[in-house]
C-alpha cells in the first residue's frame, strides 16, 4: 500500500494506528470524508486498480442493509454489510468495476457500529437473521490487515439467533483455523473452473488452493458453503464445470456442506457499459448478451441450459435441501 488516505475523525483510533503501523513507508494523506476521494469524478477504475490506495474511514448510517429478495440460503431475514469497499482481486466479471469509479480500498474502522446494528436487528427479529459479508469486498482477503472477521466472529459467538456468511475467494483463514468453530457461521467460497479462474479471476488464489482451504475449514468443524457464481458461458462449458464439481466433491465431504448455490452471470446495464469501456479487450465482456429484467445476461435459453446442466451434476453430490439457486448480480 503506497498511499493511505485517513479521515481525520478516525486518525487517532488504535485500530487506525495499528493498520498504519503495518505500512511504515506509505504516504499518509489526511482527508475529511472518504467520499471526497472515493468515487469522485475524473477517476479511472482500471488505472487505479494497478496501484490502489487505502482509505481509512468511518461509515455513517446504512451499515447493515436488507439483501435483494432472491439473495438467501434458507433464512427469511437476510441482510448484508460491507466493512470494506472494493477488493484486492481483479475478476473481470465483478460488478464492482461497473459500480465504482474508484478502485481504491475503503476500510470502515468503526467495526463496533456494525456489530451494534447487527445485534439490534437480531434482537428485533423473532426468527433467526442472516448476515452476509463480502458483497462489496472479499470478506477475508485483507483480514491479516483489518482483523474484522476475527472480531465479527467474537460478536456472532454470543448471538445464536444471528447467522453469518463469510463470502470469499481468499485462503487467509488463519483467524478462523486458530479458533474453535462457531455453529452460526458459514464460510462460503466462490468457485470457478481452474481455467476460468486463471483467465478471468486475476490475483485470486488458484482453485486448488481454495479447495484446500475449504477442506481445512471443514476438517476443523466449520460449516462451509459452495458458491458456483457466476456461471460463465464457454464452448467447453460442460467439461469445465463437470471437472470442477469432480475436483470439489472429491476433496470435501459433501454431506457436511451447509449450502450450495449457483449464480448466472448478470449485470445491470449501466455497470456493463462502464466495464466494457474499461476492458474492451475482454472476450468475456464482448460475448453476446441480451437484456432481461433490466439486466444484461446470456440469452435465456443458454442461461437455462447452463443452470440445468449444473443442477443435474450437483444432484449426484448433494441433497436438495443443501441447494439454493441464488440469482444475483456477479
Amino acid at each position, binding site marked *: 500500500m503506497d498511499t493511505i488516505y485517513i479521515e481525520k475523525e478516525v486518525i487517532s483510533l488504535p485500530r487506525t494506528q495499528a493498520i498504519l503501523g503495518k505500512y511504515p513507508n506509505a504516504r499518509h494523506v489526511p482527508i475529511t470524508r472518504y467520499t471526497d476521494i472515493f468515487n469522485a469524478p*475524473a477517476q479511472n477504475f*482500471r488505472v487505479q486498480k494497478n496501484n490502489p490506495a487505502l482509505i481509512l474511514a468511518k461509515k455513517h448510517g446504512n451499515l447493515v442493509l436488507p439483501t435483494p429478495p432472491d439473495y438467501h440460503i434458507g433464512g427469511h431475514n437476510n441482510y448484508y454489510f460491507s466493512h470494506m469497499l472494493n477488493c484486492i482481486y481483479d475478476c473481470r466479471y465483478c460488478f464492482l468495476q461497473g459500480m465504482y469509479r474508484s478502485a481504491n480500498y475503503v476500510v470502515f474502522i468503526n467495526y463496533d457500529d456494525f456489530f451494534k446494528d447487527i445485534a439490534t436487528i437480531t434482537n428485533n427479529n423473532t426468527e433467526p437473521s442472516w448476515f452476509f459479508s463480502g458483497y462489496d469486498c472479499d470478506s477475508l482477503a485483507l483480514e491479516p490487515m483489518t482483523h474484522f472477521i476475527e472480531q465479527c466472529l467474537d460478536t456472532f459467538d454470543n448471538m445464536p439467533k444471528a447467522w453469518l456468511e463469510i463470502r470469499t475467494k481468499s485462503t487467509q483463514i488463519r483467524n478462523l483455523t486458530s479458533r474453535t468453530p462457531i455453529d452460526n457461521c458459514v464460510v462460503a467460497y466462490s468457485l470457478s473452473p481452474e481455467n476460468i479462474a486463471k483467465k478471468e479471476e486475476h490475483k485470486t488464489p488458484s482453485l486448488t488452493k481454495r479447495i484446500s482451504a475449504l477442506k481445512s475449514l471443514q476438517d476443523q468443524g466449520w460449516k462451509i458453503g459452495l458458491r458456483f457464481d457466476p456461471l460463465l458461458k464457454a464452448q*467447453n462449458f460442460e467439461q*469445465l464445470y463437470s471437472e470442477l464439481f469432480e475436483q470439489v466433491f472429491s476433496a470435501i465431504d459433501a454431506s457436511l456442506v451447509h449450502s450450495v448455490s449457483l449464480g448466472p452471470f448478470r449485470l445491470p446495464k449501466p455497470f456493463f457499459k462502464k466495464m466494457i469501456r474499461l476492458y474492451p479487450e475482454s472476450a*468475456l465482456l*464482448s460475448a453476446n448478451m441480451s437484456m432481461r429484467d433490466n439486466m444484461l445476461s446470456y440469452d435465456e435459453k443458454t442461461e437455462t441450459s447452463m443452470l440445468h446442466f449444473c443442477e443435474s451434476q450437483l444432484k449426484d453430490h448433494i441433497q436438495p435441501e443443501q441447494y439454493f439457486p441464488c440469482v444475483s448480480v456477479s
Partner: protein
Amino acid sequence: MPAICLITALPSEARPLIEHFRLGALRHKHLRLYQGTLTWPCSNQASAKPTRTKQTNANQTSANQISKIQKSATSKEVTLYLLQCGVGKLNAAANTGAMLEFLPSVNAVINLGIAGSDRPLGQTLIAHCLQEKASSQQWYPHLPSPKHIDNTVSVKVQTVDTPAYNYTDDIAFDMEASGIVTAAAKVLDLAFIHSIKVVSDNHDSAIERITSKSIGTQLANCIPVLNNLMAALPFDTLPSLADAEELSRAIQSRIHFSITEQHGLSQLLLRHKALLGELPGETCLLKLATAKSIRQHLTGKLELASISY
C-alpha cells in the same frame, strides 16, 4: 505515443524546462506553446534510475544524459509539450482548456511552479491534494508509489488569488494549480494530472525576495522528480484502441457512417478483436460498400464466436 504537457505560469519557470528538454516553439495564435520528443525506459521505473544516478544537480543534467535514456534497450517515446499559461487560476484554466482543445492527443498534464510553504527553500513537493481556497473545491491526484518519485514529500497545494503568508509545512500556496485541474479533469483522469511545486518563499525568506534567477534555479532542481513522475505515469494500464480506431477511420473514409453507426462500428471492431483475436480485414469490409452491410457482416460473425477456456 503518449503526450504530456508541462504547464508553468511564468517565463522564468518555463525557461529551464525548455532548455533541459530542448523544446522548440509551437506556433499558435493565442497560446505560448513548446514541443519536443523524449524517449523513456519502458514501464520499469527502476530501470530509469541508473541512467540518472550521477544527476545530483539538474543544472548539470545535459542532453547527454537524456540521450543515455534514449539509448535504453526498452524504451517508449513521449511527445512533450510545454504551455506557459500566465499568472492566476483564470489564466491557467482558460489556457489549459484551449491547449487540450488544440492538442487532443495530450493525455497527461503536469503543472510545475513555485509555491510558498513552511519548508526549506528549493524543496521539491508533489501535490496529493489540489484545493481552490476560494471555493474549497478539491481534487486528489492518484499518485504513483513514493519510491518511483524519489520519496518526494507530498502536500496539499492550495490555490490562492493573492499571495498568502500564513505558511505551514503541510500546505503549499500557489496561484494556478486549481485552474489547471479544473480544466484538465474535464478530459483526463486524476492519475494523469499532477502538480510539482518548489518552495520559493517561507517564514525566513519573503516572497519579495524571489527573483527570476532564483525561480530558474529552483525549477531546474525539480527536473529529476519530474523525470521520474513522467516515467511513472500509468499509460500502460490504458486499453490499446489505436488499431481499431485506425481501421474505423480507414473504413469511414471510404463509406459513409452516421454518428450512431460510427459508435456501433467501433464497438463491433473492438468486440471482434476481443472475441476472435484480431481485427477484421479492411479489404473484406470495404467490399461490403454500406454501413448497414458492414454492421450485419460483423454482427453475424460475432454471434457465431464463442469462448473456450
